[in-house]
């Protein structure tokens, strides 16, 4: 396929007008719409982070004022959690890939899919409105009674935004679940599914089951804020700890909404670039479901110093150790897959390695936080900030970018410049560690999070962190540039530049609107590489 050109008719040139995009029901186009939207939100959220890191260069608060700083970390959290991380892989790659990976023409409910994008955009408008008209300063956690009775900032529009956003999540989750159940191609049994499908399926279960709790919580909070009914505010006879239980009952599973899809991406990358089936496929698949289930049982570990019963804390601590096991199983199996593989160190695999390394650090530091006695000291400090950025940025964002690089040729029909891509993956890795590793030390030293000014002995570590953040920023901007460049100038990719085995590589790049000319029939497991026969080197690599 050397003469490979961008396929003549495909989903991208099926129609050109604005209407052909805004009224599309093609899952691939909706995936692209999400990609554009969340990229915008990512840079908005990143800009807030940049301002925060600049403020923290010096111990006294001197660049912005205290309330502005509080608004910055709140809006950074809100934007990154609900407008970037949660929709990132499920709504962009999930939309684009799930139908193709199961051999279907589209998701089960294409119009519902378009509706979820519109809900997402409407929720974005509310949040943006709150932002422009003054911002919010409660932290993304909205703890009561501060959020309900004390803050004077714009909580209500942001809560409406997040409330609507939740429905977009629920609809996407529902669509994916039903598609995986009902639209798999003939022969595509559950244990032949790519592991990406398993993890996106597990994620969708969480989206559908956890998000309504957030909606209810926000409704109650809004009710208290506007009508003054005592639910969470002790001055009205409410209980502020109840809010924390409800909030984390959603928000802890939400952490798994962010990380599980990345784990699915990593399984695909490791399999393709080591030319081997994922070691312990069934264990890796089951681990995704185990994480989804356990994820619902550990919310109380955010509350060890909140005043909840010590006995509850002990139970939540034990359960939190259980949830570490399936994550460890995944890491061990990915590593074992490389053994006697045919490892092809392309950019996506670099991202996968970055993910495994950073997720390992993030996961292991989670054990520190689950350890009751240690958590008392490090909770609400920079240790927590470092830990969840290792999971959400080092893990989730690395996985997302790895996936974007891996499927970019499928989405656009073009290859990106490999040298630049490898370079920026390395820049990203270095920048990330320099930004967040010093924060573990800061946290154990006792620097609380959400501090606008801090004692001078913490300065050197903060300067290191800010320096790292500027490198990290470069690592994010570079892919923006070369990926955009590749749209016009990249080499045509052909249908299967990486030698992948899953169904999306069995159609043209970019795919036609209906994905496949004829419905594929599946006869083999997901990663059907036969390389055990001695010496048949370098087959199927870009050929």
């Amino acid at each position: 396929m050397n003469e490979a050109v961008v396929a003549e008719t495909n989903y991208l040139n099926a129609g050109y007008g604005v209407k052909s995009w805004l009224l599309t029901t093609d899952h691939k186009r909706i995936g692209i719409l999400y990609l554009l939207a969340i990229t915008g939100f990512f840079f908005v959220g990143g800009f807030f982070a940049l301002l925060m890191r600049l403020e923290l260069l010096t111990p006294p608060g001197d660049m912005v004022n205290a309330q502005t700083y509080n608004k910055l970390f709140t809006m950074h959290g809100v934007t990154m959690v609900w407008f970037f991380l949660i929709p990132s892989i499920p709504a962009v790659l999930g939309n684009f890939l799930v139908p193709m990976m199961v051999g279907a023409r589209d998701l089960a409910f294409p119009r519902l899919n378009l509706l979820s994008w519109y809900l997402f955009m409407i929720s974005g408008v509310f949040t943006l409105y709150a932002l422009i008209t003054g911002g919010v300063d409660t932290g993304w956690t909205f703890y009561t009674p501060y959020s309900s009775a004390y803050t004077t900032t714009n909580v209500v529009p942001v809560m409406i935004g997040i409330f609507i956003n939740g429905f977009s999540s629920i609809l996407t989750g529902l669509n994916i679940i039903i598609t995986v159940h009902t639209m798999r191609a003939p022969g595509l049994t559950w244990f032949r599914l790519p592991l990406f499908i398993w993890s996106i399926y597990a994620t969708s279960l969480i989206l559908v089951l956890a998000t309504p709790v957030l909606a209810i919580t926000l409704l109650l909070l809004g009710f208290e804020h506007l009508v003054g009914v005592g639910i969470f505010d002790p001055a009205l006879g409410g209980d502020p700890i109840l809010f924390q239980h409800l909030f984390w009952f959603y928000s802890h599973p939400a952490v798994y909404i962010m990380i599980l899809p990345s784990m699915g991406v990593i399984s695909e990358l490791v399999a393709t670039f080591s030319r081997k089936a994922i070691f312990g496929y069934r264990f890796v698949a089951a681990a995704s479901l185990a994480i989804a289930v356990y994820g619902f049982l550990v919310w109380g570990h955010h509350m060890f110093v909140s005043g909840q019963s010590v006995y509850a804390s002990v139970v939540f601590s034990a359960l939190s150790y259980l949830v570490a096991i399936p994550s460890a199983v995944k890491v061990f199996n990915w590593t074992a897959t490389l053994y006697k593989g045919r490892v092809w160190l392309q950019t996506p695999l670099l991202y996968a390695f970055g993910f495994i390394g950073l997720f390992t650090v993030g996961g292991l530091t989670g054990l520190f936080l689950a350890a009751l006695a240690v958590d008392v000291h490090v909770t609400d400090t920079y240790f927590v900030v470092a830990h969840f950025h290792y999971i959400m940025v080092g893990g989730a964002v690395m996985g997302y970018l790895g996936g974007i690089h891996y499927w970019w040729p499928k989405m656009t029909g073009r290859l990106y410049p490999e040298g630049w891509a490898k370079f920026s993956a390395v820049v990203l890795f270095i920048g990330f560690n320099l930004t967040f590793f010093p924060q573990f030390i800061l946290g154990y030293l006792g620097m609380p999070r959400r501090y606008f000014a801090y004692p001078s002995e913490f300065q050197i570590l903060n300067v290191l962190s800010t320096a790292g953040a500027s490198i990290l920023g470069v690592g994010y901007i570079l892919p923006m540039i070369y990926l955009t460049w590749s749209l016009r100038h990249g080499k045509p990719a052909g249908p299967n530049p990486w030698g992948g085995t899953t169904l999306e590589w069995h159609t043209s790049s970019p795919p036609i609107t209906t994905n496949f000319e004829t419905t594929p029939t599946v006869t083999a497991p997901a990663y059907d590489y036969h390389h055990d026969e001695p010496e048949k080197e370098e087959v199927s690599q870009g050929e």
Partner: protein
Amino acid sequence: MTSAKVNTMSSFPLFPDQASVGAQRVDAVYFGLLAISAFFALLIFVLLIYFALKYRAGRNVDRVIRRTDYLKLEMTWIIIPLLISFAIFGWAAKVYFDLRTPPEDALEIYVVGKQWMWKVQHPNGVRENNELHVPIGRTVKLTMTSQDVIHSFFIPAFRIKQDVLPGRYTSQWFKATKVGEYHLFCAEYCGTSHSGMVGKVVVMEPLDYERWLLQGVAQESMAASGELLYARLSCNTCHKPGGRGPDLAGLFNRQVKLEGGDFVTADREYIRESIINPMAKIVQGYPRMMPTYRTQLTEDQVNEVIEYIKSMSGGQETASRSTK
């Protein structure tokens, strides 16, 4: 920004001061975790790099996979981490439990958090703001509440932290082991000047502490201040033997029978609730008539009234005897 110039710290510290009994035990768990984590992280990193180099495409190496007992391998890396996890869990939970249970003989100090300062009341009546003076080697128990939103009382050098809630009392304890000044932080985000809600803990030799407690001004003890409030608000109009309200002498920590037959212990929580929200629990045999004192008493005044009520416990003692 902070008034606490912590002299024991260098300008580029990598590890916090260790200034309490609990700190040593917490750090032991921390180092245990660090060792285990470093082992597993290195194991994964080394294997990743080694496999990626050894088996990179194009290298002529043995790729024939002989029979591996795959199930045995999976079980190994499930069961070993599980056992290690539970060992850490048990260890950390034990330390946590011990550090949550205060010894009997504790010196009790009261803390009220409000946007954005810490008010500290010593039983003998000494008050301080954003500072906490304590003697070395003595168990100190903090009983804490908030006037407004949720705060969190955090002393890194002691490795202790506990949220401070409106409408409820929480507590924590420590025994300082090193004389010096240490940071005190609010660790739960509480609004605009959250990062200004800081102060210092001063650990003193017992003699210096005694001298500090008797500083200059003649103090009314907390209980004596409570007695004054009690009189000013005319509590004793009703709360007396045969009065319209229950007699409060000897009440503290006693069982009280409520309307409907339930029993409740008359502890701090209950007494505070009865002052702020009197209709919540009515003692059997008394009319529903007490007004709320929510707007008339601040949380530190409530603490004083409770101290007074405590001091009435052993019969009709007067409050002028300090609880110190």
